[in-house]
């Protein structure tokens, strides 16, 4: 049974729980914890249901549709001017599933938060509601509303629950990182805002409803002018070079679960926006600008990987690694062929679960050791075998080991890239090789080799951490060995995007 109420629930439930938590006494920290984990589980259930109940080979472009009119026939708005229009296609479905998985894992990992955990979970659920909203909205107004809702709680989550760090040659306060992250993302969203109104006026049909706006044939010059607004505006959230520095610094300052959501789902909103707003609305603009996106994507991949190699801090390393992996997504989108775009969406999912697992594991280590310097550790496998196993598998997925999710995604992306830009595809593969260098170096330095006696007191993962990590790991392996449920949904929709060959 398909009903739009499922998608509505993914947005309404976290909002409702955010309000519910307001009336829970903050002294009852355990109650807050249980409510939050139960909500995370419910969101995971809802999104899993939405993913698996999504029908293949139907005539409907969007499923689980629901449309409630909010404002219509006022001023410049016509029939169904602004509506709460929800629905998912084959790209939205895996993204909703990803959000459910990462959210549930993040609530489990956040069980160890003691300081003002009620306020923390309220902000976390506001953020999650925004993310679900972006992935399911088919109305430009609500799309943008949820986009902002997903970004703003990050400011407080990092500023209050984050940590400041001092390194040998520089220091980063959590306030600096929180302000930079918010300013860069809000600044970029101004471009999207301008683009949305440009499209609204140019279409001249008085509605913000996306499926209706997709039907309009826009002037070619208009498309070429407006597409970069969406490309840069959304691209910044996807970590597009040279507007990426908010991301690694944000990770270093953010608490564990916020890093998981930041790299796991938030950066995917940007890539999703490039598809939803850029490629689907303005296909001719996309065709004109894609060589530039391909170039920037390759820069992201290689530059991010090289930067990651020089990092001495776990979180900086994984932060730059995320930038590098989002570069593969941008490359895949820029191919504008079905294999490449399919690979890009697969990579969005794959990177989401894998990087969330890496950040979760960094949290396990940091909360005990209070340092994230890779060289400070050694031989961790003796004290924390399960931790090392989970972290290593995430790392191997990151470098594209067959049998894990990263391989499936990157294989498709390279296949697509070699059909359109063979030389840049070769550079992309170089990036994958560099990824192997920094992941394996990190593992050999911190996990294996001589045991550092200083860390003899470290304990392995707690039950909550174990549960969250196992959930993420299950989907890394599932996608690695059985990608069909994902490919079937994505490929069908990708072929319907105008301009994708």
């Amino acid at each position, binding site marked *: 049974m398909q009903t739009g109420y499922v998608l509505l629930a993914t947005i309404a439930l976290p909002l409702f729980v955010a309000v519910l938590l307001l009336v829970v006494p903050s002294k009852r920290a355990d109650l807050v914890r249980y409510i939050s984990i139960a909500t995370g589980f419910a969101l995971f259930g809802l999104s899993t249901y939405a993913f698996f109940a999504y029908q293949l080979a139907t005539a409907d472009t969007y499923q689980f549709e629901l449309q409630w009119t909010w404002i219509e026939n006022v001023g410049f708005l016509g029939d169904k001017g602004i509506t709460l229009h929800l629905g998912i296609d084959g790209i939205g479905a895996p993204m909703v599933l990803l959000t459910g998985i990462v959210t549930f894992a993040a609530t489990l990992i956040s069980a160890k938060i003691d300081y003002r955990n009620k306020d923390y979970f309220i902000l976390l659920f506001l953020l999650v509601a925004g993310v679900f909203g972006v992935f399911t909205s088919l109305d430009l107004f609500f799309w943008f509303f949820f986009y902002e809702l997903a970004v703003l709680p990050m400011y407080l989550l990092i500023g209050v629950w984050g940590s400041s760090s001092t390194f040998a040659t*520089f220091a980063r306060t959590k306030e600096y990182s929180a302000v*930079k992250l918010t*300013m*860069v993302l809000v600044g970029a969203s101004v471009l999207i805002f301008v683009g949305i109104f440009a499209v609204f006026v140019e279409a001249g049909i008085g509605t913000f409803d996306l499926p209706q706006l997709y039907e309009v044939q826009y002037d070619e010059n208009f498309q070429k002018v407006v597409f970069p607004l969406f490309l840069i505006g959304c691209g910044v959230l996807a970590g597009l070079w*040279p*507007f990426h*520095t*908010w991301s690694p*610094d944000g990770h270093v300052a953010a608490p564990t679960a916020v890093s998981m959501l930041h790299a796991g789902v938030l950066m995917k909103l940007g890539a999703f926006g490039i598809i939803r707003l850029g490629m689907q609305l303005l296909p001719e603009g996309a065709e004109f600008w894609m060589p530039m996106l391909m170039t920037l994507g390759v820069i992201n991949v290689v*530059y991010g990987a*090289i*930067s990651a*190699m*020089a*990092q001495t801090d776990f979180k900086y390393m994984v932060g730059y690694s995320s930038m590098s992996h989002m570069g593969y997504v941008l490359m895949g989108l820029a191919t504008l*062929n*079905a*294999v490449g775009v399919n690979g890009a969406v697969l990579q969005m999912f794959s990177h989401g679960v894998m990087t969330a697992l890496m950040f979760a594991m960094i949290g396990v280590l940091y909360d005990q050791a209070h340092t994230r310097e890779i060289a400070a550790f050694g031989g961790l496998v003796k004290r924390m075998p399960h931790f090392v196993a989970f972290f290593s598998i995430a790392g191997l997925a990151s470098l594209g080991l067959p049998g894990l999710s990263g391989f*499936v995604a990157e*294989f498709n992306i390279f*296949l697509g890239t070699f059909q359109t830009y063979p030389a840049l595809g070769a550079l992309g593969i170089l990036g994958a090789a560099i990824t192997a*260098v920094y992941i394996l170096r990190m593992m050999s330095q911190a996990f294996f080799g001589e045991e550092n006696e200083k860390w003899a007191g470290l304990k392995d993962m707690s039950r909550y951490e174990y549960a969250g990590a196992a959930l993420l790991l299950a989907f890394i392996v599932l996608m690695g060995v059985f*990608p069909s449920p994902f*490919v079937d949904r994505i*490929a069908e929709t990708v072929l319907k995007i105008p301009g994708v060959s």
Partner: protein
Amino acid sequence: MLANLRRYGIELDETDIKRECPVFDQVGRAMGFPGGIGDVIFLQHPHAFDFNVAVTLGSIALVAAGLGAGWYAWVVRPQLPTRIMARLQPVHTLVSNEYYLDDLYQAIIDRVILAGARVVAWFDRNVVNDTGIDGAAYTTGFAAYLMKFQQTGKLPNYALAMVIGIVALAVVAFSLKA
């Protein structure tokens, strides 16, 4: 994966192996590959299996010669290796260090790759972030600092600024309409 490729219209040549190796093909089918092993292995130009007698006998003879030389050097005349080692000292050093290939790799990683990576990371932190991103923020702050001196409290100046602004907007509006 390959079934997916076909869905995108990428044609792969799979008939050859099915024709050449029908038994393997059935094995593949039994293992659960629906298209048989031909779905997994592709040969563009298959050759019939060719047994080259000269190559086979030659390589067996080489193996035998190696075994014989080893037996002679270590069992029949065990003092021989020490003598050869003494005479060919530089060669022995080279060989026992595996031609220094490991040291070469290590040096390239340490001196070239990691040093280059540190340059990129420095560039990212100091140029892209501290100059580019933070610089944009400081420029905004500095512009605000300069503009605050326009906040004089002298009403005629405010009025003048408003008039100039209105005229400028009107000029823009009319020129766009024309």
